């Protein structure tokens, strides 16, 4: 546990407790106790569930709708052989008893008595069975209500959990997106490591140099073509030393001043020095955009890392990717087209905004002035 950051001798217990509790809340996140969940389920259910679907006071409503169970009062179905002749009055009972033989002269009551006796037993049995069934139904109803209530609780709990998980997923997605962008950016910066002896000859920003060195270190295993590097190095040494870069005056009315200024600067520093004004062709800018987009994309980055680094292949006449002078553009174009192939839908939309005519007076593209992935002139626009 890290140290408390207390700057003076004064401590305040209540403040410390507040901070400890805040820290516990931070650790646990949205953590509900059983009581809180119950409270949520009964009171604030509409926040988590569809109120039209589930009622928060479900159990209470069921209990109100269902009166408390009381066993039914069964009628007296008893019917015995003396039932017909019974009376609450003693003399009448005596008279009936005396006259019963006379009654039996007229008809035989015994079958009637037996039938009624059987019927009374049937009645009692049925009533008892019905009462048992009612009791069982009541018990089952209680069980159902409890199950429903528990379902409501669990649904609430799940709702809360789903909400938390959604938040976590959002957080993870944003983090993943950030990491992907970062990975693309890193992949786009992959270049080969320049030799130590040619460092003074190249005028580049130290920061980019360092970054390139890091990336070059990663790619050392892949760049085993020492012969090609050697030829490149020799060719660079034959080139005239580029003058130190100056801040180009940015035209204020230009829609893309930085790009134009950088393009002009790069053209000025081109090895042959022939295309000093560095006019851009109409499709050049869109191609450059496509290439940059391709560099950001994994396909283009893969192409760059597997040797298809157009800016770095300049001067190698044997290279199939082309040279700076003649085939550089085609090499770049191939990388760009590869990226377009990976992102077929994005290319037309990005190619649509054409540069203004003022900024691109010449339709002829200057191959050597194309900003390469390690070209610092590409940095401000990205």
């Amino acid at each position, binding site marked *: *546990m*890290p*140290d*408390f*950051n*207390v*700057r*003076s*001798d*004064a*401590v*305040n*217990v*209540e*403040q*410390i*407790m507040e*901070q*400890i*509790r805040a*820290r*516990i809340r931070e*650790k*646990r996140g949205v953590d509900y106790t059983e009581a809180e969940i119950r409270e949520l389920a009964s009171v604030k259910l509409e926040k988590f569930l569809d109120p039209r679907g589930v009622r928060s006071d479900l159990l209470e409503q069921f209990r109100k709708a269902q009166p408390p169970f009381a066993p039914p009062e069964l009628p007296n179905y008893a019917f015995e052989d003396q039932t017909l002749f019974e009376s609450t009055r003693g003399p009448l009972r005596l008279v009936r008893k005396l006259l019963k033989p006379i009654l039996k002269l007229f008809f035989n009551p015994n079958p009637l008595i037996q039938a009624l006796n059987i019927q009374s037993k049937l009645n009692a049995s049925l009533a008892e069975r019905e009462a048992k069934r009612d009791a069982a139904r009541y018990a089952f109803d209680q069980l159902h209500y409890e199950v429903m209530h528990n379902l409501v609780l669990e649904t609430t709990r799940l709702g809360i959990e789903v909400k938390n998980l959604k938040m976590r997923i959002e957080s993870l997605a944003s983090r993943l997106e950030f990491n992907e962008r*970062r990975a693309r*950016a*890193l992949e*786009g*910066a992959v270049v080969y490591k320049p030799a130590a002896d040619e460092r003074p000859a190249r005028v580049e*920003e*130290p*920061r*980019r140099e*360092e*970054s390139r060195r*890091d*990336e070059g270190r990663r790619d050392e295993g892949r760049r085993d073509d020492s012969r090609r590097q050697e030829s490149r190095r020799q060719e660079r040494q034959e080139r005239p030393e580029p003058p130190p870069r100056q801040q180009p005056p940015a035209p204020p009315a230009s829609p893309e001043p930085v790009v134009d200024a950088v393009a002009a600067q790069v053209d000025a520093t081109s090895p042959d020095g022939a295309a000093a004004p560095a006019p851009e062709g109409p499709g050049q800018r869109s191609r450059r955009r496509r290439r940059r987009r391709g560099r950001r994309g994994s396909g283009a980055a893969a192409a760059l890392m597997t040797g298809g680094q157009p800016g770095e292949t300049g001067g190698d006449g044997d290279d199939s990717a082309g040279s700076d002078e003649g085939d550089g553009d085609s090499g770049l174009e191939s990388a760009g087209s590869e990226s377009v192939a990976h992102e077929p839908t994005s290319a037309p939309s990005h190619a649509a905004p054409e540069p203004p005519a003022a900024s691109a007076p010449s339709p002829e593209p200057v191959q050597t002035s194309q900003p390469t992935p390690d070209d610092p002139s590409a*940095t*401000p626009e*990205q």
Partner: protein
Amino acid sequence: MKLAIVVQRYGHAINGGAELHARYVAEHLARHAQVEVWTTCATDYVTWRNELAAGDERVNNLLVRRFPVKHERDPLTFGRLSDHVFNASHSVADELEWLEAEGPTSPGLVSHITKHAGEFDFCIFFSYRYYHAFHGARAAGTRAILVPTAERDPAVGLSIFGPIFRGVRALMYNSPEERTMIQSIAGNQQVPSVVVGVGSDVPANPQPQRFRQKHGIRGPFAVYVGRIDENKGCRELFRHFESYLRNGAGKLTLVLIGNSILDIPKHPRIRHLGFVDDADKFDAIAAAELLIMPSFFESLSMVALEAWALGKPVLANAKCDVLKGQCIRSNAGLYYENTAEFVETLRALEFNKWVAGSLGKNGRQYYRDNYDWPVIERKYLDMLQRLSASKDAPGFEALPGWMERRKDNCPPAADIVAATPAGPSTAPDMTLPRPTGPVSPPLPRRPQPAVPERQERPRPQQRPSGGQGRRAQGNRGRRGQSSGAPR
């Protein structure tokens, strides 16, 4: 000045809170007045069995008069009556029956008070809830001073105690929470009262190393001192501490001091030492990183005061209003309400020595300001002088008549206590001054690995807009400085 201290048990071997409190007060007031102690022959607060001889005895040069207890407590009867008067509507007769069942029923003691209270200036009764205080205070009349030692339990809500709280000459409370509770129940704001508490005979130079050597304890530890009982919150303490151990980061051992009537978890970092003498107890507290007080009900935790006197922080159970209030007022202890808070507060005290030291320092100051013996004695003597000067004595309300006593018109005592305001008292009279300026919050600095990683990672391309652009500029500036490249 002649004073009589009336308490349910008294003696060297009796270490109950109120009894020890009474002994300390008696011995310290004996320096300023002639003091006698009137008590029973009992030593066990559960049975009140007569274990000591009745008659006069000298304890630390104090005359102690012991009176026999008429009958022992019947736990079943007492439990049944307690359940009735605490949780159901009942009558005054029921409450008196409950008091008789609780004990220690010593008519001889009450009779002695009736006869001899007039010979003393004041009779100081300890523990309102027992037979001797209820009947003795009525017998002493206007000479009765009460030290209630009341906890937040249902007994304080019984209606028979209201007239006692309103009728005594003065009340010597242990804490502001106790005063608030009794005043809200009994409405006795007019009775003179003061929050006093009690001091302790803390040694000037305890020997922590001696304790470690004697008991073979190495490494940091937290100590609990007291009876190891579920009622004292020890079961909860074990549960919390096991959670702390499961967490794995801390290195504290829990050392338990006191007799146990509870199963103690078997763990190498939970050590039970049993009952130890006072010297060992103070050595243990001095050797500990902190004292833990898990009790739910306390009127005043003497061991917490002793820890503060020794400059140790206290981790208390926040469910006990008194302990929480003491921690807040003293600014010398943390408190917990659940396992997570226990673990975090324990770790905060363990890993932040500076905070623990500051809390301990505050505790020492709090003890010196409020609970050092000169302060306690002065408060008692001031109150006695004030009462001597004033002849205003309202006296006790008469008990209801025979018929009235038997009417079931007393509400459940638990309901009355539940209705009283809870929480720590914010009375400023015993609160240490808080820092007035902006207190730097002792925020635990959470490790943030993402930030340095983001700063260290290579940024080959800058982003064009928003805050990321600004951040990129900041990084660029640093890189520009390091590389020396102009921008």
